[in-house]
C-alpha cells in the first residue's frame, strides 16, 4: 500500500498558553480533494502553516508521501512536491504576471540559483510559463504588473504561482474569498482543472465551492477535527450542525 | 564667527588680489578641517604671510607667488586627490608637513608624476614631516625637508637627558604611524647608548587623531612610576595629552617635539613651567633682529588665535626665493639644483640644504615654558624660554645619511 499524500499525526501547536491546534490526526490519500472547514478562528490557517513548514509543530508530526516533513524548511517541503497559496494575495507585486509565474516555474525546471545564464535562455521555462498562463487564462494580462491586476485575477495568479512548480500536493487557502458569483465559478473551474490527478487540500468558507469540489471534508473546531467524511455524511452530522449553529448555514441538498 | 577666521580672511583677501597675477603657484596640502585642522591652519597662515612679504618685495625673479590651501584631512589617499587637483591647477611646488604618512604618499606620487610627465615636474617642500627615512633610504631628488628629522631632534633630547641624573625611568608615548614608531625607535636606541641605566617603563602607541580623552593613558604613565615622558605627539594629540596630564595633577616632565602645538601650553597652565620641553628650529624668545621681532608681532596681530611657530615656513619660502634667483628661473628643476648645498642666512643662524639628502641643517634649540618671556603663547603670558645650554649648533645636530640620491640631468 502506498503512503497517503499527507499524513498528520497527533499534531499540536500552541502559542504560549493558547492551544491553537490540538491533537489533529488526518490522512489524505493521493488524488483526493480534501476540504477543511470550520468557524473563524478554528485554526485552519495555522494548520496550513504547520503543513507547509511556516510553523514548527509543538508536538506531533506531518508526513508528505511517507516522508517526515515537520521541522523542515518551507522551501525544502516545496521542493518535495507540496505547494500552497495564501489567504491574502501573496504575489510579487512589482513584477509582471509573466514574471510572477516564471519565478514559480524556475526551481522545478532545475534553474537553481543560476546567475550565469539568462532567465530566458531555457526554452522549457518559457514554454511552461506560457502553459501555466494559458491554463489560468492570464495570457492577455501577461505583461501587466501584478499590482495592477483586478482582484479576481490576482487570486488566479496566486493559484498560478502555486501550481507553476508542478507540485503534486496543493494547499489552497480560501481561494475564492471576496469574489463575486461569476468569479467564483471561474475560480472553481480553474481549481478543478489545475488539480486534475493531484492531491488538493482546500480551506474555504463558501460551502457551495466545498460541496461542489471536495471528495472528503474535515471539520475543524477549536483546533480539533470533529468530523472527517464525504460531503454527504458531513451534511447530516449533528456535531457539525451544532458547531455551525448560528455561524453560517450549511447548504441544502438542492444547492 | 571666530577671531581666528577673521584674521585668516584678511590674509586670504590679500592673496586673492595677488592670485589674479600670480605666476608661481604653491599648493599647501594639509588638514584644514577636523581635529588636526588648527595645526594645518597655523602652518597655512605662516605661508600666506611669508608669500605676502615676498610679493611685497618684488616677488621672485619679478614674478608674484601664490599659496593655495588644499584640505587633505591628514589622509594619504585624499592628499593624492588634492595633489592631482593642485597639479591640474598649475601648481609646481607642494608644501606639506602634518603627518609622515601623508608625506610618504606625496613623495611617492611626486616621484611617479615626474617620471611620467617629463617637462611638467613638481617639487615637494616638506616643512614638518620628520620621519628620518625620507632623507635616508627613501630619499628623492624631488623632496626637500626644511625641518630637522626625528633622529636629530631625539639626539637633542637624549643629550639633555644624559645630563639629568634623577631621570631613571622613561615612558614613551606616541601616535601609531611611521612617525610615532620612528620616534619610539630613536628614543629607545639613543637612550640605550647614552644612558644604559635608564629603564623604559612604557612604550605606548595610540591611534592618530582619534583619542578624545587621554586620561587612561596618563593614569598608566603615573602607575608606571616614570620620571619623564618622551613624546612626538603633535596637534590635537599633543593638546589633549596635556589636558589630561593637567587634570591628573601629576608633575612628570614631558620632553616633546611639538610642545608648541596650539593649546598644549595653555592646557597645562603654570604646571608647564620647567615641565614641558620642546626641541625646535627656533623660538620667538631668542635674541633676534628688530626685523624678526616685527615679523613675529605682525603675525600675532594678523592671526591672534595662533602664535609665530612655523618659523620654517618662512625659511622654506625665502630659501625658494634665494634658489630661484640664483638659478635665474622659477622652474622646478633649476630651483632644485640651486637648492642643493645652498646656504641661507636665517634670522637665528645659518642653514644649509645638504645636497646629499636634501635635509636642511640648522641650529636646534631646547626650550621650556617660563613666565619670564617677551612673547607668550596661546594668548597667555607663558612662553618658551631657551634652556641653559639648550642651543645645539647645526654642526652638532647633523646626523649621517644613507641616501643614494638619483638626479635627473642638469639643465
Amino acid at each position, binding site marked *: 500500500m502506498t503512503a497517503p499524500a499527507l499524513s498528520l499525526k497527533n499534531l499540536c501547536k500552541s502559542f504560549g498558553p493558547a492551544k491553537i491546534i490540538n491533537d489533529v490526526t488526518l490522512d489524505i490519500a493521493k488524488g483526493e480533494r480534501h476540504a477543511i472547514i470550520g468557524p473563524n478562528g478554528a485554526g485552519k490557517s495555522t494548520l496550513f502553516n504547520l503543513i507547509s513548514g511556516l510553523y514548527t509543530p509543538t508536538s506531533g508530526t506531518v508526513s508528505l508521501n511517507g516522508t517526515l516533513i515537520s521541522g523542515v524548511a518551507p522551501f525544502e517541503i516545496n521542493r518535495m512536491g507540496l505547494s500552497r497559496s495564501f489567504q491574502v494575495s501573496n504575489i510579487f507585486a512589482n513584477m509582471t504576471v509573466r514574471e510572477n509565474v516564471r519565478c514559480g516555474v524556475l526551481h522545478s525546471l532545475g534553474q537553481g540559483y543560476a546567475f550565469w545564464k539568462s532567465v530566458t535562455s531555457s526554452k522549457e521555462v518559457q514554454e511552461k510559463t506560457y502553459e501555466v498562463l494559458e491554463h489560468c487564462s492570464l495570457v492577455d494580462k501577461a505583461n501587466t504588473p501584478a499590482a495592477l491586476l483586478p482582484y479576481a485575477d490576482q487570486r488566479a495568479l496566486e493559484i498560478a504561482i502555486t501550481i507553476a512548480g508542478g507540485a503534486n500536493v496543493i494547499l489552497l487557502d480560501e481561494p475564492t474569498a471576496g469574489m463575486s458569483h461569476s468569479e467564483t465559478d471561474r475560480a472553481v473551474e480553474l481549481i478543478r482543472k489545475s488539480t486534475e490527478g493531484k492531491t488538493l487540500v482546500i480551506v474555504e468558507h463558501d460551502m457551495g465551492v466545498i460541496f461542489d469540489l471536495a471528495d472528503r471534508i474535515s471539520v475543524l473546531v477549536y483546533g480539533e477535527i470533529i468530523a472527517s467524511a464525504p460531503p454527504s455524511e458531513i451534511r447530516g452530522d449533528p456535531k457539525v450542525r451544532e458547531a455551525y449553529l448560528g455561524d453560517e448555514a450549511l447548504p441544502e441538498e438542492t444547492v | 564667527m571666530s577671531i581666528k577666521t577673521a584674521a585668516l580672511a584678511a590674509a586670504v583677501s590679500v592673496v586673492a588680489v595677488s592670485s589674479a597675477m600670480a605666476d608661481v603657484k604653491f599648493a599647501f596640502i594639509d588638514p584644514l*578641517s577636523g581635529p588636526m585642522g588648527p595645526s594645518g591652519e597655523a602652518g597655512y597662515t605662516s605661508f600666506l604671510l611669508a608669500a605676502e612679504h615676498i610679493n611685497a618685495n618684488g616677488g621672485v625673479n619679478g614674478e608674484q607667488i601664490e599659496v593655495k590651501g588644499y584640505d587633505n584631512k591628514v589622509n594619504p589617499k585624499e592628499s593624492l586627490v588634492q595633489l592631482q587637483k593642485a597639479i591640474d591647477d598649475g601648481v609646481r611646488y607642494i608644501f606639506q608637513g602634518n603627518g609622515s604618512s601623508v608625506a610618504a604618499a606625496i613623495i611617492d606620487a611626486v616621484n611617479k608624476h615626474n617620471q611620467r610627465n617629463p617637462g611638467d615636474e613638481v617639487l615637494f617642500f616638506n616643512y614638518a614631516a620628520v620621519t628620518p627615512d625620507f632623507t635616508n633610504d627613501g630619499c628623492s631628488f624631488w623632496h626637500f625637508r626644511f625641518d630637522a628629522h626625528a633622529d636629530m631632534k631625539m639626539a637633542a633630547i637624549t643629550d639633555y637627558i644624559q645630563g639629568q641624573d634623577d631621570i631613571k625611568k622613561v615612558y614613551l608615548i606616541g601616535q601609531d604611524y611611521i612617525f610615532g614608531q620612528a620616534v619610539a625607535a630613536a628614543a629607545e636606541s639613543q637612550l640605550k647608548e647614552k644612558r644604559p641605566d635608564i629603564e623604559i617603563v612604557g612604550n605606548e602607541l595610540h591611534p592618530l587623531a582619534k583619542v578624545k580623552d587621554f586620561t*587612561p593613558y596618563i593614569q598608566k604613565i*603615573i602607575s608606571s612610576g616614570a620620571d619623564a615622558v618622551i613624546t612626538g605627539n603633535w596637534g590635537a594629540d599633543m593638546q589633549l595629552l596635556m589636558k589630561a596630564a593637567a587634570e591628573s595633577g601629576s608633575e612628570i616632565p614631558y620632553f616633546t617635539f611639538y610642545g608648541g602645538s596650539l593649546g598644549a601650553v595653555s592646557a597645562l597652565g603654570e604646571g608647564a613651567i620647567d615641565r614641558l620641553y620642546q626641541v625646535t628650529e627656533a623660538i620667538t624668545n631668542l635674541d633676534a633682529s628688530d626685523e624678526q621681532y616685527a615679523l613675529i608681532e605682525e603675525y600675532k596681530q594678523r592671526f591672534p588665535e595662533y602664535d609665530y611657530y612655523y618659523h620654517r615656513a618662512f625659511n622654506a619660502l625665502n630659501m625658494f626665493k634665494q634658489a630661484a634667483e640664483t638659478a635665474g628661473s622659477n622652474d622646478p628643476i633649476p630651483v632644485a639644483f640651486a637648492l642643493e648645498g645652498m646656504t641661507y642666512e636665517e634670522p637665528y643662524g645659518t642653514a644649509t640644504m645638504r645636497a646629499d639628502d636634501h635635509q636642511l641643517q640648522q641650529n636646534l634649540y631646547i626650550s621650556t615654558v617660563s613666565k619670564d618671556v617677551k612673547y607668550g603663547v596661546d594668548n597667555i603670558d607663558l612662553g618658551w624660554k631657551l634652556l641653559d645650554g639648550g642651543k645645539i649648533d647645526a654642526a652638532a645636530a647633523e646626523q649621517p645619511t644613507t641616501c643614494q640620491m638619483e638626479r635627473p640631468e642638469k639643465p
Partner: protein
Amino acid sequence: METIVFALLNGVIYGLLLFMLSSGLTLIFSMMGVLNFAHASFYMLGAYFAFTIMGATSFWIALFLAPVLVGLVGAVVERYGLRRVHANGHVAELLFTFGLAYLIEEIVKIFYGKTAVDYKIPSLLDFPAFTIYGASFPAYRMFMLVIAIGMLIGLWFLLKKTRAGLIIQAALTHPHMVGHLGHNVPLIFMTVFGIGCALAGLAGVIAGNIFVTDPAMAVQMGPIVFVVVVVGGIGSLEGAFLASILIGLLQNFAVGISASFADIFWFTGLSPTSEIGDITVSSLAPVLPFLLLVLMLIFRPRGLMGEQEL
C-alpha cells in the same frame, strides 16, 4: 590594583554617559521601530548649544536650556520629517535619519567652523576632587557621575510613577496596543522622540567639554550607541543600562592593559615580534564594542535583556 580602580571609575562614568545617549535611542527604536541614525547628532547639538549658551550666560543655564532646545529640535524633526516618511517603511525612515545626520553635521560646520570649539569646564568645577595613587580625580567627572545618576533616577521615576510613563512602558513592549487604548499615538511618538533627543543633548552638554566638541563627535559616538542598543536588547532600558556599563568598563579596562597577545598566549609560542603577537590589549579597545555587537547578533540576537528578536 591602580589600573582596576582607574578603569572602574572611568568605565562607570563613560558607561553612564553611554546610557544617557542610548536610553533615548532605545525608547525611540522600541516604540517607533525607527533606528535613529541621527541620534548622536543630537548629542553633538547639545554640546554646541551649551557652548553658545555658556558664552552668553553661564554653564548652569546651558545645562538646563540646551537639552530642552535639543528636545524641541527633535520634536520638530519627528513632526515634519519622520512622520512624512513613515508611510514608506522603516528603511525609508532609516535613510531619512541617515541624511539628517549628514545635514546636521554640515549645518554645525557652517555655524561653528570645521575645527573644535573651545567649550570649557565651568571654573566652579575645575578642581581636583580627590587623589588616588598619585593621580588627582577631577571634580567635573564626579559632577558627570551625579548628573548621570540624577538622570537615571528621573527616568525611572517618569517611567514607573507617572501615567505617561505607564503608557510609554506599554508601548515599549506592545507598540501596536497603544492606539487601541485610545491614546494619541502621533503625540506620544513626538514626545518620546523629543525626550530621547533631549537626553542625548544632555549627554552632549556634560561630555562636550571633557572630550572635544567638534563636528566629528557625532560620527564618533553614533556607532557605539547603536552597539549599546543592540547588545542591550530591543525594548529594554535595563538592557541598555547593562550594555552601557559593560561597554564603558570593557573599553576602559582594555586601554589600561599593556599586555600583548604574545604575553597572553605565551603558551602557544606566539612570537612577540610577530604581527599578531605584537597587538596589545589596549590597541584592541576601539574594536571591542563592534566585536561584541557582531557576536551578539550572531549568537543572541535578542540582546542581553530584549524580549523580541531583532
